C-alpha cells in the first residue's frame, strides 16, 4: 500500500474522519470510502463534468482533486441537495417534471453545477444556462429538457420567499481583494 494520511472533512453537513491513500482522487474517496456513489465518474480526466461536487461552495471536478486536499474543507455532493429523504429540492423537482434526467448518468454533476449557478445567477437567460452547462457532457445528447428544467427551477426559486440552498452550498472564504 502507498502512503496514507488521516483527513477530516464535512460532506453534506456530516463530518467524516478517515484515512486515505494520498494518490486517491476525491471522487474515488467520496464513492469508495464514504459510500456516496451518487457522484459519477465519466471520463476521469476533467472533461465530462459527471463528478462535479461543490468544494467550499464552488463547483469542482472531483476527479481532478486528491482526497487529501479536502482535509478541513466542506463538500456538497448530489446526496446532499434534497432537504429530506422524501422531499426534493426545487431544482430536482423541476428535473423530474421536465424529464431533465434522461439516462441519469450525467445528472449528479449537472445538479451540483446548477446549484452553484442558480445561487449566483438567480435570473439566468437560456444562453447563460447553456454556457453554464457547457462543462457537463450529456451523451443522451438532449440538452433541451435540461435547459427547460433549469429555467423552470430558476423561476420557482425566484418565487419562493427564501430560496433554500442545501448545507455545503454556501460560498466559503472570500476571493482575494478586488
Amino acid at each position, binding site marked *: 500500500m502507498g502512503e496514507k494520511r488521516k483527513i477530516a472533512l464535512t460532506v453534506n453537513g456530516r463530518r467524516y474522519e478517515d484515512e486515505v491513500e494520498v*494518490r486517491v482522487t476525491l471522487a474515488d474517496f467520496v464513492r469508495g470510502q464514504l459510500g456516496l456513489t451518487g457522484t459519477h465518474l465519466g471520463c*476521469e480526466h*476533467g472533461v465530462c463534468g459527471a463528478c462535479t461536487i461543490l468544494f467550499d461552495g464552488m463547483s*469542482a471536478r472531483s476527479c*481532478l482533486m*486528491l482526497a487529501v*486536499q479536502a482535509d478541513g474543507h466542506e463538500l456538497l455532493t448530489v446526496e446532499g441537495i434534497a432537504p429530506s429523504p422524501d422531499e426534493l429540492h426545487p431544482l430536482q423537482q423541476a428535473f423530474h417534471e421536465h424529464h431533465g434526467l434522461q439516462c441519469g448518468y450525467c445528472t449528479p454533476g449537472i445538479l451540483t453545477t446548477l446549484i*452553484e449557478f442558480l445561487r449566483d445567477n438567480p435570473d439566468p437567460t437560456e444562453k447563460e444556462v447553456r454556457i453554464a452547462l*457547457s462543462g457537463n457532457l450529456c451523451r443522451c445528447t438532449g440538452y433541451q429538457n435540461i435547459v427547460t428544467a433549469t429555467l423552470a427551477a430558476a423561476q420557482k426559486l425566484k418565487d419562493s420567499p427564501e430560496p433554500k440552498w442545501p448545507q455545503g452550498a454556501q460560498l466559503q472564504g472570500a476571493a*482575494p481583494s478586488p
Partner: protein
Amino acid sequence: MKPPPFSYHDPQTVSEAVRLLGSLDNAKLLAGGQSLMPMLNFRFVLPDHVIDLNRVEGLSYIRESGDTLEIGAMTRQRDLEFSGTVRARWPIMHEALLQVGHRQTRNRGTIGGSLCHLDPAAELVTLATAYDATVTVVGPNGQREIAFADFPAAYMAPSIELNELVTAVRFPRWSPNHSYAFIEFSRRHGDFAITSAAVLLEAEGAGKITRASVTLGGVGTAPTRAREVEQAIVGEVASPELFRAACESCRKLEALDDVHAPASYRQHLAAVLSRRALEKAHARLAEPAGARVH
C-alpha cells in the same frame, strides 16, 4: 485511470516548497490540478513526489501598484474573473477568462499553473505574451525575473530550473483609453482554442493607431506576437482595408500541424481572427472608455 503512487508534501511556505523541490528527485508541483491531475490519472507523468502548493501562504493575491498588476501564482482563474480591478483596467483578461474552460475548472485553475503548463493555446499564456508580462521565479539562490518573451524554452516547457517555482506574474497597464479584443475559435465552448487572437490598441481618437499588440495563441509551439501586423498598422489610420492587408502576413507564421488542425488551417485562422480582433478592438475605441468594460 488512477494516479500512480507518489509521496505527498503540502508545504505552508514558499521557502519550504523551494527546499522540498531542491531536495526531492522527480518531484512535480501541484497547483490548481487542472492539467497535472489528468496527466496523473492517465499516468502520462510518474512523479515520485507531488508537492501541493495549495496550502502555501501568500501566493494568492491580485495587487495593483502604479501601472502594474501583480498576480500571485496560486490566484485562481475564478478570482481574476471576478476582480473589479482586472475588469476595469485589464479588461482583455476578463474577456479571455470567460473562454478558459468552465466554471468548474476556473474555480480551481491558477494563473501560475496555466503559465507553467504553457499550452500554446491557453488564454492566459497568450495574454502574458500580449502584455510582455514578467514572471517572478524563486529558487534556492533567491528570486529572479523572466520576461515572458523568454519564458517558453520549448513546446510546453518553461525556462525555469527544476528547483525553481513561479511565485508571481506582473502585467503592465495600457493607457486608460486603450481598447482590446480577445477572440478564439474552438469546436466547443470551453475547449482549448485551435487558434486565438489577442489585440491591445491605442489610438488618437478613433483614428491613427499609436500602439498595438497583436498575439496569436495556438498557432506555433508558443503564442506568437504578430510583429509584422503591429508594424503595418502603427502610425496608420485604422480601416477595414488596412487590417485585412496587414493580417495576411499571419499566413506565413510557423504553425503546428496535429490531429486538431493542419498547419495551413491554423495560418488561415490566424489571418482571419487577428483581423476580426483588430476590428472588434477598433470598434470599441469609438465607445467611451468606461463603456468598453463589457
